């Protein structure tokens, strides 16, 4: 690490007021500013240049994603999921985010981004663990290079910055892509993460899915900014404004930003303008805060239809291909349904196993208490697994005066 001859701040003509009148040259803000209108490809001339392979891939993933959203929502009605925040209508964002990354890169999803994780290759059942009410994170983040789905808004953004920074320090050309909603941009953590990323020139791409609402709160009550992408200039990073329902445009912008980051060019803020077609979650009543006409209008700007139209116009999509995409999606849904209908096998003793590397004495006491209660409930269940974080440490009643107290 010490071999890097120039620090980040040496390399760039970083802003530092020097004594007047010799004001130092400042970064030129012009290139950082986003376009006035969201970038679009589909439906424009430029779409003709989109590779057939990419279009087909996007199409298949979008169809699968839509089906996944429908299936997950259905599972909430059957009580198989505790809650589901759907990304119906936002599938282009989810899919483009996943496809823009290399295998060695990291994805930092929010609670709404299970589809992005799945499009990246994660097993849907593992992805849904949190929302099923099973263990919080149902997969090994390091194995998949997918951070835990994050519920406290914007808090995953500094994690992405730190991870990307660490990778760069280690000499790995890893990029982190972090997802956040329009509402999440108001949190202090958004600000701090973007600032750290820019100062450190960390290889991070921030993807804001601006779906118009934070639960019931419309964007106009969230920000007065010309666009969320305009926030980039205040950190000294480029901001890009993209049609988030245009999978091709977003894929291009994200791929560019990832490449730029990988090459040492630093972070980018991408705002994808999209729309949440479903309610915030299955538990939400969206009619309280928005009109059907708005939803209908956005349905006409559907991310799948946009790709489908391009494929069809270019004669790249025959009936077989459509059928295949649908069948694949159905198969995924059927498999998901079947597996989600099985009761997950949870071990209550896991409650104590992963608090520390080695349970503290009161955790041993509490584990003993629960073990006793479980034994009383069902004396014939097999022995409960010991705490796996603790090689060789058996949870046991600690040697204290009062045994197995209620604490």
């Amino acid at each position, binding site marked *: 690490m010490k071999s890097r001859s120039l620090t980040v701040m040496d390399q760039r003509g970083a802003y530092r007021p020097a004594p007047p009148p010799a004001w130092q040259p400042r970064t030129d803000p012009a290139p950082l500013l986003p376009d006035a209108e969201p970038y679009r490809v589909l439906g424009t001339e430029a779409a003709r240049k989109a590779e057939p392979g990419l279009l087909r891939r996007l199409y298949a993933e979008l169809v699968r994603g839509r089906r996944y959203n429908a299936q997950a929502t259905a599972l909430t009605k059957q009580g198989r999921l505790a809650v589901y925040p759907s990304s119906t209508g936002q599938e282009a964002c989810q899919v483009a985010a996943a496809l823009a990354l290399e295998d060695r890169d990291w994805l930092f999803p929010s609670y709404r981004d299970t589809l992005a994780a799945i499009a990246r290759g994660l097993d849907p059942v593992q992805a849904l663990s949190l929302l099923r009410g099973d263990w*919080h994170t149902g997969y090994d983040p390091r194995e998949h290079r997918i951070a835990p789905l994050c519920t406290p808004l914007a808090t995953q953004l500094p994690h992405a910055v730190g991870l990307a920074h660490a990778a760069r320090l280690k000499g790995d050309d890893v990029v982190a892509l972090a997802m956040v909603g329009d509402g999440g941009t108001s949190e202090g953590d958004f600000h701090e993460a973007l600032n750290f990323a820019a100062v450190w020139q960390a290889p991070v791409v921030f993807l804001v899915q601006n779906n118009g609402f*934070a639960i019931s*709160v419309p964007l106009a*009550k969230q920000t007065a900014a010309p666009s969320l992408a305009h926030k980039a200039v205040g950190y000294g990073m480029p901001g890009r404004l993209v049609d988030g329902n245009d999978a091709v445009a977003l894929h291009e912008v994200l791929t560019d930003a990832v490449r730029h980051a990988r090459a040492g060019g630093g972070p980018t803020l991408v705002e994808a303008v999209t729309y949440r077609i479903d309610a915030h979650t299955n538990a939400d009543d969206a009619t309280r805060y928005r009109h059907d006409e708005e939803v209908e209008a956005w349905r006409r700007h559907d991310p799948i239809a946009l790709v489908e139209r391009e494929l069809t116009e270019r004669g790249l999509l025959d009936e077989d291909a459509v059928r295949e995409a649908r069948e694949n999606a159905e198969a995924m849904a059927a498999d998901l349904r079947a597996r989600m209908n099985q009761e997950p096998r949870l071990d209550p003793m896991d409650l104590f196993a992963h608090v520390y590397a080695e349970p503290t004495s009161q955790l041993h006491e509490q584990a003993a208490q629960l073990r006793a209660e479980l034994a009383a409930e069902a004396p014939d269940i097999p022995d409960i697994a010991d705490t796996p974080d603790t090689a060789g440490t058996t949870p046991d009643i600690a040697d204290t005066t009062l045994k197995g107290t*209620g604490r």
Partner: protein
Amino acid sequence: MTTVAAKPAAVAAKPATMAQALGRALHDAMAEDPAVHVMGEDVGTLGGVFRVTDGLAREFGDDRCTDTPLAEAGILGTAVGMAMYGLRPVVEMQFDAFAYPAFEQLVSHVARMRNRTKGRMPLPLTVRVPYGGGIGGVEHHSDSSEAYYMATPGIHVVTPATVADAYGLLRESIASDDPVVFLEPKRLYWSKADWNPEHPLAVEPIGRAVVRRPGRSATLITYGPSVPVCLEAAEAARAEGWDLEVVDLRSLVPFDDETVCASVRRTGRAVVVHESGGFGGPGGEIAARVTERCFHHLEAPVLRVTGFDIPYPPPMLERHHLPGVDRVLDAVARLQWEAES
């Protein structure tokens, strides 16, 4: 602190939920005092994710019941400024764990403004925090963080366990010239009681515990979501020959030593019951101060029945975590009855 005056009864008592009683308290406070402002995420058009603020924006306008940007430090921080100018903001935090971003504002400003200014600038401000589990919420939706607030001098910490207290204590909190963290037990939002909104029960000023069930064998000291658990446990204990007294603290700060200690001196035994983790939790303080004050009346150490010392578990495991009737009875059984004279 004012005591809410009983109004003449015009209509009969009807079943109401705690969420409705809280909403009614906000409504009545806003109607009585134009300085009362409600603010938070989704409190306006939506009426809050628990619908506590339902209808307030419609009736009082967006400026009195405001959907804020999504930033808890900003919400509490701007509420501080509003209180500095003489308003009485009532802030809603959407879930317990989402109050953490506002922690610095709470500890470094809300709790200290009166003190910093030698009493010249008190902050009449209420922070409503839905807390606790039992509703199947995914991670970060079921925290019990009262220990943090208790350890912060300068704020009152209030929590209702009944529909009537939900109304009365929230009115008292809003009327208080001190900042109040008002903890609403999530799983009691839908609990019901016959309650006459035209004739709200007068409540005593913040700081008085109440004996919810008299008993002679031992005292269960509890609050918020654990009050119904303790009442149920007390019923069940009758079969074992124990006559348990249940004290509902209602406010952790101020702490009502008088009521609690009077009960413990009478019964000679006590169990503190709460859902928050045990280690470093409220029960430690309560057990310690009861022991300091009632040592020679105690036949057994004050025991604690609490949530485990773990991050809040996923929904499918939460029933194992939450202290229930059996765990309370188990603790009562360990109160060294063999020493009974």
